């Protein structure tokens, strides 16, 4: 097990380095003045340019710049934004909100996706199954921002069941609408994956053997079919976090959630390059670490992995 963790860590480090290097390279090492690259047509004040040059050590050789940039990421020393505010401070303010949103969305897609997928898989070919399958295709096809607007309009405005915008009071209850619209796309994938996995496991030899041992149907379903079906689903849930981050930009914008995504969205609107690069790098770090955690969870779920050579 320890060997497995070590090996995964060794694999994750180059990926993180490579990805941040990629981001950094694109912004700072491609031809052109990086300061201009970061701000576009609207040149910032001289003071900000000086601060940026200092923050990113633009007078140093490239790899020194990059090394210092990495150090800054890990120490959360992310420099200042357009208005001269430290980015890390505003990130600290908005990050918990997005974390809440992501956890809620992840929970929604996991719970409902697995439940629907399990039932559909167990009733393969029945009406429930084919309805759910077709519905899941439709859900996959609807872009997250369309969902956002529809939920906002129908549930928030017309039915008045929930607040259409979140504003400053981000809580579990007020985040239900944005979390739902964020979760829907991945929910359909979780459902389909669970269903496929359940069907495969239902036909597995060990499930037949478990039945032959005299176990009751619920026990067979829970301890053998569901338990084994979770293995690929968990991997997907980890990977879906990347999609959630992208979706959060849209969802937080629509529902006015004061989170990382909205911060990013505002930075895009204001063409604030440094803020974008800094936040994206932090998010990549979060994504990579989250996937590392998923890998560990995976090893816990599937004992074969732990001993793999």
């Amino acid at each position, binding site marked *: 097990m320890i060997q497995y963790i070590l090996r995964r860590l060794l694999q994750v480090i180059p990926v993180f380095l490579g990805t941040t290097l*990629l981001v950094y390279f*694109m912004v700072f090492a491609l031809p052109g003045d990086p300061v201009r690259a970061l701000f576009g047509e609207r040149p910032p004040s001289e003071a900000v340019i000086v601060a940026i040059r200092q923050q990113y050590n633009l007078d140093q050789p490239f790899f020194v710049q990059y090394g210092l940039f990495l150090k800054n990421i890990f120490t959360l020393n992310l420099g200042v934004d357009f208005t001269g505010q430290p980015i890390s401070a505003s990130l600290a303010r908005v990050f918990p909100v997005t974390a809440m949103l992501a956890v809620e969305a992840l929970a929604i897609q996991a719970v409902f996706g697995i439940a629907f997928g399990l039932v559909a898989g167990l009733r393969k070919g029945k009406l429930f199954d084919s309805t759910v399958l077709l519905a899941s295709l439709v859900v996959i096809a609807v872009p997250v921002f*369309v969902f956002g607007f529809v939920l906002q309009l129908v549930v928030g405005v017309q039915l008045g069941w929930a607040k259409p915008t979140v504003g400053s009071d981000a809580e579990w209850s007020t985040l239900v609408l944005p979390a739902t619209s964020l979760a829907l796309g991945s929910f359909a994938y979780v459902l389909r994956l669970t269903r496929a996995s359940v069907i495969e496991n239902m036909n597995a030899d060990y499930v037949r053997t478990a039945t032959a041992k005299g176990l009751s149907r619920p026990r067979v379903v829970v301890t053998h079919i569901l338990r084994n079906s979770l293995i690929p689903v968990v991997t997907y849930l980890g990977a879906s976090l*990347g999609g959630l981050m*992208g979706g959060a930009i849209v969802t937080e914008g629509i529902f006015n959630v004061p989170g990382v995504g909205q911060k990013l*969205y505002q930075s895009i609107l204001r063409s604030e390059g440094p803020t974008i690069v800094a936040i994206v790098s932090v998010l*990549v770090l979060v994504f990579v670490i989250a996937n590392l955690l998923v890998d560990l969870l995976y090893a816990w779920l599937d004992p074969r992995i732990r001993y793999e050579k």
Partner: protein
Amino acid sequence: MKSNRQMEHYVAPLEDTPLLATDALKEDQAPLSLWQDAWRQLRKRPLFIVAALLITLIVIVALFPGLFTQTAPDNNCQLADSQGGPRAGHPLGFTFQGCDVYARVIYGTRASVMVGVFSVICVLIIGVTLGALAGFFGGWVDVIIARLGDIFFALPIVLGALVVTQLPFFRDNKSVWTVIIVILLLGWPSMARITRAAVIEVRGADFITAARSLGVSNIQTLIRHVLPNALAPIIVLATMELGVFIVLEATLSFLGIGLPGSIMSWGNDIAAAQQQIRTNPSVLFYPAAALTLTVLSFIMLGDALRDALDPKSRQR
């Protein structure tokens, strides 16, 4: 102990259990290749028929929008029509700018379909080539390509697009092609991964060893034997990704970092309509519905293809 039991010796009457020649060839069916077999299954599936019809329609709309509307979508927008309801010749009403919604939805098709189709073609070329090389040759080729893919993979696609579109080159040259390049840059790893996995699976088959022992060269083996057998998951993913990339383009355009405002596209229209969502939701609804329907057609096609090409359903 068991000897005192009577055991009869039973022989079934021969007329009830006629003996067939051992391992005779069934010659009653016409020969059928796997592709023909898949096609026969496909054309019976409602999901496939609906998807195929819709896609045909969408492609025609994208190629010849003039066939579907006489109204020019952007030239004669009258502010007087702003947010006007449907009326004769303008079945879906008007936008805030007073443009005809129906015409804009029709003319917006081309951008979406173009981005989707060309992105998928580019991703196929790069992803399949790299994935096939990595999977077939293994060793250091595999290590380099797989790690490179991991690096791009760890960049969530919308986040990556945010960074890339901040670059001066992309900011200054916004067009269909910059969007395609962004999608290619971030989209190839998943295609490469699935190709690599499929190639590795086929590579281990005995018929590949048989080809090698016949003296067929590596490249010939890859092209003639490995790739054709690895094609099914690639085709399915490509079809699905067509839908996914169209959504991605719309999302980027919605965020203002995709297609320039001068190009008519559903994403841009949805972004423009969000200001009026509470007063006139239908302006947002129609391009969103067109977008969803297009994506749904490709997702449905991919799903139908997956079922028809599934190796588990192949063995008869």
